[in-house]
């Protein structure tokens, strides 16, 4: 350790969707290391500790060391040639980089998708179907006297969700913190989070939808058959008690995780929960919120939405954005073998995608931007080393509740940011294509403006 230390106050941790912005980081400037992360949870501490500067080539082309510039040229050539380029990842980088990535997809007539499609994509689809009553996390802190966690294990995955936002903190109308709240946990098994709950409801695996549907019926005063217990493991009496408490509370909140969205039923599970929250608003105030994983996956949803109108899985082949999960989402595109090139930003699909999708990645030219070597970077034609967002570069990230924050980096990196590399690739592609690629097909209905093209 050197003596050249500095402290960065109010820095933001981008490890998970909580995006806590109260980190006080002690930085060893000479060693390019964060030696202490005050206020960080155990996950955040590890995140800050692990991100020093590694000695890696700026770029690798076919496994050979290259400059960033040479990598940009190769990447631009690959993308400009491709007929169905897939751009994926983006949840662990800044909104500034995401914005350029969407622009590049538009320019190319490619497809852009984020890790949302493999985590809370079902919640996005559910939202499109029924809407959502939601809130910023401070409302939970200030007002929520009943909180229901469904299909998640915050104690281990989002520790400060409990301590900073939802369970123990005191708030304006919750003067005694934990004592003023009823905490319910619904899950298929006991976890480290279970002891935090006043009421634990254990449901049989893959029966969340039935439980939610029964709750909706009870909230609406409809009859539910007692056989619900055999099916779900939850008795009618427990459900009736829950509904009574839900109607009685002043401000209720659901926080739901991938345990709900990624089991059988997927977006219908999310939709059932969102609809339940909506139904309850006839009686008292209720909100619901998906608990997001990656540090800026919420930013990715926002950027892709404001630029295209759709949150993920967007295709530009015909000169305008089209949305269709299943058709334009990455796992599906790759598993069917539809893509002929891929640009992966800050994600490692080769470590977690289904085998047919990974097999296709091995068949096509892949470009990767990542601070670290990954399984995906190892199979890439072009692999860029980039600086880590929040540690080395500033930019904007969105917390899981859509609150935007500006990052305060701890120390500089010799490597370029994702935004810089993507901008260089885009600028080079623009030259190769002579501007945006002209649309390949006509729009279904051409508005007056579109006729100008």
């Amino acid at each position, binding site marked *: 350790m050197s003596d050249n230390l500095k402290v960065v106050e109010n820095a933001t941790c981008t490890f998970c969707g909580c995006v806590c*912005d109260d980190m006080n980081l002690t930085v060893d400037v000479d060693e390019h290391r964060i030696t202490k992360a005050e206020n960080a949870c155990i996950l955040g501490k590890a995140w800050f500790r692990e991100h020093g500067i590694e000695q890696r080539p700026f770029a690798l082309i076919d496994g050979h060391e290259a400059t960033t510039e040479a990598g940009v040229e190769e990447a631009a050539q690959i993308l400009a040639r491709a007929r169905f380029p897939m751009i994926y990842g983006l949840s662990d980088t800044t909104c500034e980089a995401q914005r350029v990535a969407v622009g590049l997809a538009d320019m190319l007539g490619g497809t852009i998708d984020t890790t949302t499609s493999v985590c809370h994509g079902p919640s996005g689809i559910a939202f499109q179907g029924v809407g959502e009553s939601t809130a910023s996390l401070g409302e939970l802190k200030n007002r929520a006297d009943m909180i229901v966690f469904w299909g998640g294990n915050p104690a281990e995955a989002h520790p400060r969700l409990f301590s900073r936002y939802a369970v123990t903190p005191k708030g304006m109308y919750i003067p005694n913190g934990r004592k003023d709240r009823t905490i319910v946990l619904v899950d298929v098994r006991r976890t480290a989070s279970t002891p935090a709950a006043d009421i634990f409801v254990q449901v049989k695996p893959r029966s969340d939808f039935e439980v939610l549907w029964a709750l909706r019926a009870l909230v609406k005063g409809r009859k539910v058959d007692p056989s619900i217990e055999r099916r779900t493991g939850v008795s009618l009496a427990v459900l009736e008690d829950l509904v009574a408490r839900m109607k009685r509370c002043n401000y209720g909140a659901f926080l739901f995780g991938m345990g709900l969205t990624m089991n059988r039923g997927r977006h219908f599970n999310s939709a059932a929960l969102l609809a339940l929250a909506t139904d309850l608003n006839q009686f008292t105030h209720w909100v619901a919120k998906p608990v997001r994983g990656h540090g800026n996956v919420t930013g990715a949803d926002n950027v892709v939405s404001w630029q295209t109108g759709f949150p993920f899985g967007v295709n530009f082949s015909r000169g305008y954005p089209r949305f269709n999960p299943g058709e334009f989402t990455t796992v599906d595109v790759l598993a069917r073998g539809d893509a002929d090139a891929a640009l992966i930003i800050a994600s490692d699909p080769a470590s977690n995608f289904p085998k047919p999708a990974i097999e296709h990645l091995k068949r096509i030219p892949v470009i990767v931007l990542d601070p670290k070597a990954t399984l995906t970077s190892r199979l890439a034609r072009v692999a860029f080393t980039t600086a880590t967002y929040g540690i080395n570069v500033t930019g904007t990230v969105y917390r899981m509740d859509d609150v935007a924050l500006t990052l305060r980096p701890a120390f500089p990196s010799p490597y370029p940011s994702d935004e810089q590399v993507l901008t260089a690739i885009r600028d080079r592609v623009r030259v190769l294509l*002579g501007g945006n690629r002209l649309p390949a097909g006509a729009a279904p209905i051409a508005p007056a403006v579109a006729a100008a093209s």
Partner: protein
Amino acid sequence: MGSPLRIVNGRVYDPANGVNGVVRDVCVRDGKIVDDVPPDAKRIDATGLVVMPGGVDIHCHIAGPKVNLARKVQPETHRDDVQLRTRVTRSGTGGTVPSTFATGYRYATLGYTTAMEAAVPPLGARHTLEEFHDTPVIDKGFFVLVGNNLLLYRLLQEGRLEEFRHALAWWLTVTKAYAPKLVNPGGDEMWKGQRNANITALDDKIGAFDLTPRRVIAAFIEAANALGLPHPVHIHCNNLGHTGNVETTLETMRLAEGRRAHMAHIQFHSYGAVAGKSRSNPTSRARDIAEYVNTHPNISADVGAVMFGHSTSMTADAPLAYMLYRIAGGKWVNADTENESGCGIVPFTYQDQVYTNALQWAIGLELFLLSEDPWRMVFSTDHPNGGSFMTYPRLIRLLMDSEFRKQQMAQVNQKALDHTSLRDLQGREYSLYEIAIITRAGPARLLGLTAKGHLGVGADADITLYEEDDDKEKMFAAPRYVIKDGELIVEDHEFRDDHGGRVLHVAPAYDAKIEQVIEPFFEDYYTIRFANYAVDDRYLSHHQVIPTAAPAAAATPAGAARP
């Protein structure tokens, strides 16, 4: 900023300078209107064309957290209304809530060059500015929601009026806002804290606070006037959409007591009730509202006209959105922002045979036709609440063409028309000069944008050239040329160039000591750090600070207080 340009022989409508259809040249250099340009300057032959300043939308919802939720929740509306990319412009999607790029381009292709996003919670300011970055061509600013702000409520409740004023200035400055906005004052606290209740009258108690909407509104009118803001407090009254709400609206306007106040989408606040009936269909009280505005020069309003067809109700008035959801069914979005605001979103369709919808349509027209001062009763549909901004050309035709209006009136619910005075207003038609006032010169003046809405020397060179046509809808739907900051953006109806546009904001001075009052509140009740709250300048690639008239007493310069 482009090479010099001479627009030759156009018929110029420039009401701010008293120019009413005079054929003359307009010269442009370095993004501004100038007296003259060298003879070798580029020329546009505008013979037979109508030349107007670029349109200014004083009240719309185009960027920020709630707009993005409204976009996300309606993929079905984007699918068949798409914006193709060109060599120089980005693609996008439309519907009533277009993507950012489509928003900018579509405003531009209607001849609009400035638009004000009308409701952003302070915590959503950074997000809004990020969307502005991706909203091309037009200049834009936003009104920041302060009427349900709990810290401001505390200061007011404790009678700390000077600190209240400094805190308001602080909020405007650190969020890069353009004007303070009140939405259903007190309503959010009732909605979020009192089991989805709402404010029903100006003297209701606001939840746990020892405050009433009356006191809150009066305090903001006072503070905004004292700060000398270019645009006064922008008020969305209590009881929006409710039968009989006209009394609340009139009372709210009286609260101004001669001071400046702007009433948003006043059509939605002009409803009467049948005498003696507590629950009845609304009736029109447009005459009372128009008369009040006509005779009170301190008051201005935008109409918030309703147009038939698809709309998206998106508002910080969360209880209102829930009421609409209970009527319309389908999808509903609610989004609470800690200490600052509520929000509701409901896709909604206005139908000409539905009594209430037809009445709302008619009241919007009545307000325009009864107005005696077009400078203070200006054009809006509260996009996309009353209808998309893409319906503006049709609304202009309804105002300019009484024969067309008569045809349209014949199509709607006649019982609703019976409760309005629209049939008595057949003689009234707007002229091009008046249209130029309500869509350009008037909104610019109300916003205090001295370089907008006119074509005098020194004005921003935001210019629209229309082809004259008897069908005014057709005329205003597709200008032949649109010039932004002196750059030719649209030529012969096609995009020639892309353009960024500027963010317009204010930075009123405040006493830096006010931060010592605000910071502890943050530590207790916000979930982000005080130090991370203020929006820094990197979110303003091109921007312009619009000056305030009079600095508050004992204030430091805004620049010094900024983070």
